[in-house]
């Protein structure tokens, strides 16, 4: 009886993993497919990577996405960190309310956020393009940085900042010399998360971008209108590889952030 349950557990785990990872594996495999039709294996080839690298529009979109992701996560890092540090010290009751407000963007359906951003930017008369993209993305990235920094602050020994003041540091020096360096790993992982979220976003980008600025997800989305193409498979494979690198980096940062020996 016990043994059978054990095999069922294994089978179930296998099933879950297969559902999640099999499509990924297929995409990677087909990106090296000679044949233009995805479902037929025509031998190994790097053809589609060559086509992809020759596609200038695709690279423009990639560059936009990277610029957008970097700018949005930098802005989110500043806003989120200052917010978390500032709110860390205020009254618990006010803090609860503020925290809810900060976390709300994570819970509001994205389509609503997208429409609201579009309406708001239009009302302000902002020219749609990279500027509005950065603003919109920063707005939904802030909670990620805020969450990370808040968790780190909660675990930080309050007497460290007191010790710094006791040794003669004013509040700003304490922030630069003590608080910020200790928060750095949390800020970095919040930024990585923000970058991933921004890089991945279609909906909000679709609503707040201008006519001549396109991001990678938007480009992929429009190219897929006529069904999947092998170039997209190749692009996905490259992005997947990039993601794995970032995930590894984030895990490494997380480990650095924790005090050694614990």
């Amino acid at each position: 009886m016990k043994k059978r349950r054990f095999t069922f557990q294994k089978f179930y785990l296998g099933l879950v993993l297969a559902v999640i990872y099999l499509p990924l594996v297929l995409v990677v495999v087909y990106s090296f497919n000679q044949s233009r039709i995805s479902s037929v294996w025509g031998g190994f080839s790097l053809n589609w990577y060559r086509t992809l690298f020759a596609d200038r529009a695709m690279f423009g979109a990639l560059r936009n996405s990277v610029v957008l992701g970097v700018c949005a996560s930098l802005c989110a890092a500043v806003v989120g960190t200052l917010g978390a540090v500032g709110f860390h010290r205020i009254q618990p009751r006010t803090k609860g309310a503020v925290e809810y407000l900060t976390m709300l963007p994570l819970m509001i359906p994205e389509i609503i956020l997208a429409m609201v951003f579009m309406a708001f930017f239009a009302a302000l008369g902002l020219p749609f393009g990279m500027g509005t993209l950065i603003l919109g993305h920063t707005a939904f990235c802030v909670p990620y940085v805020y969450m990370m920094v808040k968790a780190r602050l909660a675990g930080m020994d309050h007497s460290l900042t007191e010790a710094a003041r006791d040794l003669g540091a004013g509040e700003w020096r304490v922030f630069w010399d003590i608080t910020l360096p200790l928060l750095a790993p949390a800020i970095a992982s919040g930024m990585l998360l923000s970058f991933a979220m921004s890089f991945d976003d279609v909906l909000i980008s679709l609503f707040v971008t201008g006519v001549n600025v396109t991001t990678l997800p938007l480009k992929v989305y429009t190219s897929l209108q006529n069904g999947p193409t092998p170039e997209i498979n190749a692009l996905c494979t490259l992005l997947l590889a990039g993601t794995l690198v970032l995930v590894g980096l984030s895990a490494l940062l997380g480990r650095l952030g924790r005090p050694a020996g614990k």
Partner: protein
Amino acid sequence: MSTPILQLQNISKRFGSAQVLRGLSLEAAAGEFITLLGASGCGKTTTLRIIAGLESPDEGRVLLEGRDVTDLPPERRDVNTVFQSYALFPHMTVAGNIGYGLRLKGLPKADIRRTVEEALALLQLAGYGERRPEQLSGGQRQRVAIARAVVNRPRVLLLDEPLGALDLQLRRQMQLELKQLQQQLGITFIYITHDQEEALTMSDRIAVMRDGCFVQVGTPAQVYDRPATSYVARFVGSANVLQGHVTAAGGGQLTLSVAGHTARVQAGGRPYAPGEPIALALRSEQVEFAPEGGGIPAVVRETSFAGGMLRIGLELPDGSRLTASRHGIDLGLQPGDRLSVGWAATAAVPVEVDDR
């Protein structure tokens, strides 16, 4: 007399509905080692934080060298703290930690390096400058925390139970080292502990705290031998407190009735009138065994042997308890044995009752 280095004038502090400090006043002279001794929750850490500027008092003033610093932030007070948790900066090396205060003062790099090296040598940490705090043992971290504070040559050094986390042997060693360091540097130390032995060993003066008040401030000898109140007697000297009443006063002596029997003590402190109730502090080693019929009869209730001391729990005729102790002698006493107890008239001290 010159101005005291540190003056606390009538300091009060409340947190919400809890009154933590009730009108504390204290003066510390230059180079003095003062210990705030009290059980946890008596307000000693709050007192220290008010001196450091990390907490502001609701009432009262803090004066450093006669200058009112009550409203100055911690970074502008010539006072440094050794925190209970050490509070070493984990992202800086040992040298970086120790030199941080000097760096904030804007001293030249070469001077900082030299001073830090001196401090490392002084606290037997030479060669550890490039390590990170997490690579050090508890005792070493302790030394770094002390070094980081003393390199700034503060007027007053505040130490919040600095040896609390160390094991007994290291504690003893650090007690001696700290005392030597203090004498060497000539800095005024305000030291917090709940360990009366530590307080008695290290201090020039002890301020016994209870419920946000100083119950008694005096030299270790005064606090130990002439406790002002029953709380001090019990907390500092682990003394017995006996209840009785005065039957006659005169000739520098009080005649009392304790547990229905006559006893004598030397008069001291405030005068007592015949008929007045009195409490006596009597340390366990000062309890003498008299030949039967010579003193107050007592029954042995239990004996225990701890730390080279034989402790004998006795019951007096009125049911009150008394502990006697003897150094490492097996008296062959059994529970139920009867004997007589007494004490030298100079041994027992009349005290005010402030507990129970």
